[in-house]
């Protein structure tokens, strides 16, 4: 693994390895001293062309916990606002010796362009591109699902075979949904997408998931082990709501997770949300604050998952910046 661009690229073995490594990282984060010397001397650049709080802070925390140097770059206040291209920005970062570039961009495919054109020798990690992919979010969701639903006991080495997951809400604009559909399918879970017809993307028939327009029917018939609520991305819906649904109230009535729907879920079912939440729109305060909501834990797991991704991409000699020794020294 050299880059992490899309969950569709991950094999089952890759995905389980990342989750297992995340488990090891999470164990170190329970200690008093959380910092590890593992990536000392490596440089990670956070290249954010789009606003983000938790993803950027999460990557920054993960890199710092592994002792890497972190450079934060946000498009606002940089030369990008003077018209610099992605290529020139990337070449600049390359000249500064970045070992990994964590990129968030409003254009789908920007991380792929960065990774495949030789502009940077480092690893490229997609932290969200347009309406395409957000692989570390899907990985932290899968890690959270595995921890809660595949136990009790040690879940190391397990996949998510047999789990039923409902992904509910604004699927059309959601890179989280796209990443999760592929990853959860690879891990053996069954995914049902629930959205109003206007928020279901064209071509969804090719995705490894079922589609339903009725949340109550899915809860009653499929008894999902987890529901993942998606944020209604009003900033991506053009003026006056964009006509995707008649009114926020109607959306909430049909697709919002409230106390009644929470009660209708199986007893063991958990509630996920990638954040930031629109309380009162796609999720009620009752649901968001219930003990079955693992939304805050998702954030903590995000640091462990991103540490795992950075470790697997940067630490070994198969990582781009490492020098490969001819003969491996033994024992020590």
């Amino acid at each position, binding site marked *: 693994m050299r880059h992490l661009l899309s969950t569709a690229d991950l094999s089952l073995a890759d995905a389980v390895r990342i989750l297992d490594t995340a488990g*090891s990282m999470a164990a170190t984060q329970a200690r008093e001293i959380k910092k590890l010397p593992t990536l000392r001397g490596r440089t990670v650049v956070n290249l954010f062309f789009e606003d983000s709080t938790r993803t950027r802070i999460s990557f920054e925390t993960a890199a710092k916990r592994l002792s890497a140097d972190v450079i934060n770059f946000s498009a606002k206040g940089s030369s990008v606002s003077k018209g610099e291209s992605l290529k020139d920005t990337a070449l600049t970062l390359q000249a500064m010796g970045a070992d990994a570039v964590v990129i968030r961009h409003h254009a789908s495919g920007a991380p792929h362009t960065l990774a495949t054109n030789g502009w940077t020798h480092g690893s490229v990690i997609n932290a969200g591109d347009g309406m395409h992919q957000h692989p570390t979010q899907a990985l932290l969701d899968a890690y959270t699902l595995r921890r809660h639903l595949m136990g009790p006991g040690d879940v190391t080495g397990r996949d998510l075979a047999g789990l039923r997951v409902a992904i509910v809400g604004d699927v059309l604009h959601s890179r989280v949904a796209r990443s999760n559909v592929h990853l959860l399918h690879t891990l053996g879970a069954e995914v049902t997408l629930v959205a109003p017809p206007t928020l279901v993307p064209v071509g969804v028939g090719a995705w490894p998931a079922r589609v339903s327009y009725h949340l109550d029917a899915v809860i009653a018939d499929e008894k999902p082990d987890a529901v993942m609520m998606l944020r209604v991305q009003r900033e991506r819906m053009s003026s006056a709501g964009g006509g995707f649904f008649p009114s926020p109230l109607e959306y909430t009535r049909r697709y919002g997770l409230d106390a009644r729907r929470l009660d209708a879920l199986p007893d063991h079912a958990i509630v996920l949300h990638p954040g930031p939440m629109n309380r009162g729109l796609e999720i009620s305060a009752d649901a968001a604050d219930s003990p079955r909501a693992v939304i805050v834990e998702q954030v903590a797991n995000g640091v462990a998952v991103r540490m795992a991704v950075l470790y697997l991409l940067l630490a070994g000699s198969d990582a781009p910046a490492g020098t490969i020794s001819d003969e491996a*020294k033994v*024992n020590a």
Partner: protein
Amino acid sequence: MSPAVPTENDETVADDDAGNVVLGAPEIARALTRIAHEILERNKGGADVVLLGIPTRGLPLARRLAERLIAVEPGLHASQLVGSLDVTMYRDDLAHHPTRTIGETDIPGTGLDGKVVVLVDDVLYSGRTIRAALDAISDLGRPRAVQLAALVDRGHRELPIRADYVGKNLPTSTGERVRVLLQECDGRDAVLIEGGAR
């Protein structure tokens, strides 16, 4: 191929495999019993001792030492006596090997502060694993003392580190490979020397 990150043994277990057997199962058992008594003697009992095995093969060795300590001092409890200490993330040679899988670190609930930590590993060679282990320990607590037990000391140290308890000193050339096989990981107990003179 590095025995420090073992691929589960792909060889057919036969007694005439490539290496010379330098220690068999009875010799390994005797060496561990002697080390156990040395640990108790040096530390005037086992009350404050914590045995930390370094995965993969240090951990079963630490467990076997603990059994022997408990046989002598029945007041000790295995759960407070043995732990595992993975040093992968503290190694200085990570960039020279394919990505290593991170092992398990499990420190007894009583912690390390004020204890006598005995690190347990199968082979002592360059000393770099032990350096990494010392760094890992300092992030986990402040033991009163740290000691080192190794089943085999094959020499060729690259750092000023020595073992307090040694099962067998085994002078080797750097071209040779020392392999420790343990019942728990490999289905039998033996120490082999392979290769060399090439």
